[in-house]
């Protein structure tokens, strides 16, 4: 049994789809934070079979919930203060994501225009479809869970 100590103040991201933790680590820019981060891969889960967990010891304001909601809004965000969970935050799909994904359409203006932000807009919340703001190329999150 692997033991990872609890955190005093920070957050625990639970129910991450197995294998997605490193993408989340990078997308949340956790590598840039000067704090303790524990990544647990392939933990046993009754609900999911296997899951990943990320524990971060840092101020909760450092977390960009919009990006996390975009990656997978089924992730559970537990806020820890004084060694105990004080809040569970719900994630929603953000209406707009900036510079998280890149448009893959080679005919899109973003492929040539310098310094242009990569912006995707939520066009179908039910099917979780995002489209490039410029060329309307469709993007469906590969981490989207079967419901």
């Amino acid at each position, binding site marked *: 049994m692997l033991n990872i100590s609890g955190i005093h103040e920070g957050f625990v991201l639970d129910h991450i789809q197995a294998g997605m933790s490193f993408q989340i680590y990078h997308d949340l820019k956790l590598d840039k934070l000067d704090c303790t981060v524990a990544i647990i891969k392939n933990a046993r889960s009754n609900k999911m079979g296997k899951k990943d967990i990320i524990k971060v010891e840092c101020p909760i304001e450092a977390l960009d919930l919009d990006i996390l909601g975009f990656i997978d809004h089924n992730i559970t965000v537990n806020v820890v203060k004084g060694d105990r969970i004080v809040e569970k935050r719900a994630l929603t799909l953000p209406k707009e994501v900036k510079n998280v994904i890149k448009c893959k359409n080679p*005919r*899109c*203006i*973003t492929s040539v*225009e310098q*310094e242009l932000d990569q912006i995707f807009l939520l066009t179908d919340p039910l099917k979780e479809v995002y489209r490039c703001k*410029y*060329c*309307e190329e469709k993007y469906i999150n590969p981490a989207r869970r079967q419901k």
Partner: protein
Amino acid sequence: MRHLISPLDFSVEELERLLNLANDIENNPDKYADACKRKKLATCFYEPSTRTRLSFEAAMLNLGGSVLGFAGADSSSAAKGESVSDTIRVISSYADICAIRHPKEGAALVAASKSEIPVINAGDGGHQHPTQTLTDLLTIRSLKGRLDNLTIGLCGDLKFGRTVHSLIHALVRYENVRFVLISPEELRIPEYIREDVLKAKGVEFQEVERLEDAIGSLDALYMTRVQKERFFNEEDYIRLKDFYVLNKAKLSLAKDDMLILHPLPRVNEIAVEVDDDPRAVYFKQAKYGVYVRMALILTLLNIEV
């Protein structure tokens, strides 16, 4: 400040006003002859286009304004690596309104976001060509007297034809418009138009392979070209290509007042023998293109006559 980037940028009511203005221009051209005196239109065409560019230039000249611009990326600062954002900022100092055509999808939206003058999308790659859609709507409305209660046939390459997609988007906003989609299996309408636009809005439509099977029920027939390079094998192309050529024999099955439209250029999909038929309105359509661009320039510049 308003721009025109997508055919849906105008509401149905705004479109009504624009098309009314275009008809007034058609009927009273002298009234508008000096409406844009001392105003300049910049035509920034990063890829070749004869028809659209000349139509914009004719529109501005008819309004008494002047025109400046470039035709082709080779003769512009883009060849030196300048971004669209920088170019439009500079053009904003030279002209009062700009029409931009660019091979990259979304280029006009980028231009609009940095521009200090109204921007008109004159085609951004295979994405949008809103002034063609306005032209099509004005042609149908002027010659049919309405945009609702119509059966519209769209024939040819329905998969890649951006003019067809934009026209469907624009027409589903009107009551009781039915579509007959005539194309080979390989060039059927994309799934997102079928599911997200037609079915989602409960619009009546049918898909057929042969023009003869559908032409009798149509109020307007919108022809597009079936290109050989769109097919996987030559056999299919040879088998199907004549289904999508409109000639006198097929036209004899149509209603007496059916309109034949085409975004042009026509290659061989409408036989020359059809040109003299009163139902062939594709050259008139080019004329309506000038009127609607005149109305658009006046609208975006907030000029009332």
